[in-house]
């Protein structure tokens, strides 16, 4: 049956991996192509790049990175960060990305999701949702933008449904109250989103150990789990994570 996916995510700034990774023996831990190749060899199911390049002058650097990665890494590649238009999506996909991830732009102009999915197919469009609890018992969540600082007032579950209706093929859900904390995903949020939509959900934000990945699948009902630090800093290898998930009864590709 369909395996649950593990997706390492890399922040890329001006064509370089931000903060680097800690792979022993990796010649250039700042080169996204080398890092992607390494994750690919280690059993990653997909790779995600988040382009955090601030200056609009250097927006093309990521395209070069994508082309190189697509020549050497033969698993799906998703790229997000600053995707604002159909033209942006086209550039990424033409360079070799399989999916483009859209976050803030969808909030500003939800029609973009209809347009992009209509042009490229739903399978190429991931909508990234950053959400946080807005009540004390963690049963209501809003969509936040600007790195989790700005409350849009939009209900996250409704938003996920709307994104599906507009043609998103997949949701990347980041638990913004957990991101960076290593306390695990916001499980009630993850589960609510996963139950609300028919499309796959990737859980992200807060992973500190393999138990969090397992909980994301078993309790959060996520179809895939995305993590950055635990893999980058060598705390857990992808293989270790998959073995632990398998032990917990989750089907993984090993």
């Amino acid at each position, binding site marked *: 049956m369909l*395996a649950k996916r593990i997706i390492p995510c890399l922040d890329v700034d001006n064509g370089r991996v931000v903060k680097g990774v800690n792979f022993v023996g990796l010649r250039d831990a700042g080169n996204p192509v080398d890092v992607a190749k390494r994750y690919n060899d280690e059993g990653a199911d997909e790779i995600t790049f988040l382009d955090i390049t601030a200056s609009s002058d250097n927006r093309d650097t990521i395209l070069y990175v994508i082309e190189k990665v697509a*020549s050497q890494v*033969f*698993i799906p590649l998703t790229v997000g960060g600053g995707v604002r238009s159909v033209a942006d999506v086209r550039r990424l996909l033409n360079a070799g990305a399989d999916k483009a991830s859209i976050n803030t732009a969808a909030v500003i102009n939800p029609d973009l999701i209809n347009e992009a999915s209509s042009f*490229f*197919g739903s*399978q190429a469009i991931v909508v990234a949702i950053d959400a946080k609890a807005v009540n004390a018992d963690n049963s209501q969540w809003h969509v936040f933008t600007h790195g989790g600082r700005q409350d849009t007032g939009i209900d996250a579950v409704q938003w996920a449904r709307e994104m599906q209706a507009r043609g998103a093929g997949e949701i990347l859900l980041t638990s913004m109250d957990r991101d960076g904390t290593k306390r695990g995903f916001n499980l009630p949020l993850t589960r609510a989103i996963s139950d609300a939509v*028919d499309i*796959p959900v990737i859980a992200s934000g807060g992973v500190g150990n393999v138990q969090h990945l397992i909980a994301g699948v078993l309790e959060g009902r996520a179809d895939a789990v995305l993590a950055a630090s635990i893999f980058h800093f060598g705390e857990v290898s992808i293989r270790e994570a998959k073995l632990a998930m398998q032990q917990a009864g989750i089907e993984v590709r090993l």
Partner: protein
Amino acid sequence: MKTAIVDYGMGNLHSVLKSVQEAAQGVMQSEQIVLTDDADMIFSAERVIFPGQGAMPDCMAALNRSGLGDAVKDALQNKPFFGICVGAQLLFDHSEEGDTQGLGWFSGSVKRFPNNQFDELGNRLKVPHMGWNKVHQIQQHPLFDGIAQDEYFYFVHSYYFAPENNSVSLANSDYPSEFSCVIGQDNVFATQFHTEKSHLAGLKLLQNFLNWRP
């Protein structure tokens, strides 16, 4: 030997090209791999790869607009042909997606996975079927050479093929019930999964195709 990858405007063609080039590294004879929207290039190629991504009606419309339909049909008749994803679905009579007529090379139709299917643990199965799933070979085929039984390949699709004649089905997967994911007959071989996104197993399959003398 020239292998033409048909560019009719649909699909992640860069990925297909790169993975076929990578696979070509492992073949004995020198291979020229071309990504082309030129009918003459396809007519003159020894092998043809036919990718496809997105919605079936859009792909069929794009194929019609491209003027490459005759070259593709000629390839289906005469040379080793590898269809991928919607490129495989297009070979059937009809798809429920947009009620679209296909090329009719294989008898049968393409149907949608229903929403609200569950696995044995009671978890809801999402549509599209997206991710790595096991491919169970049910017939011998030279393209399966060196590929383990129940190997994982990468799928992204909401529709699956239902061949009228079981003898053309070469492999199945489950979601949650069995569905055909590789079809083949004579010189034609086609996969529902994205061979070009399936890591080493996908590369091996492409390499076998480049070496194939049906």
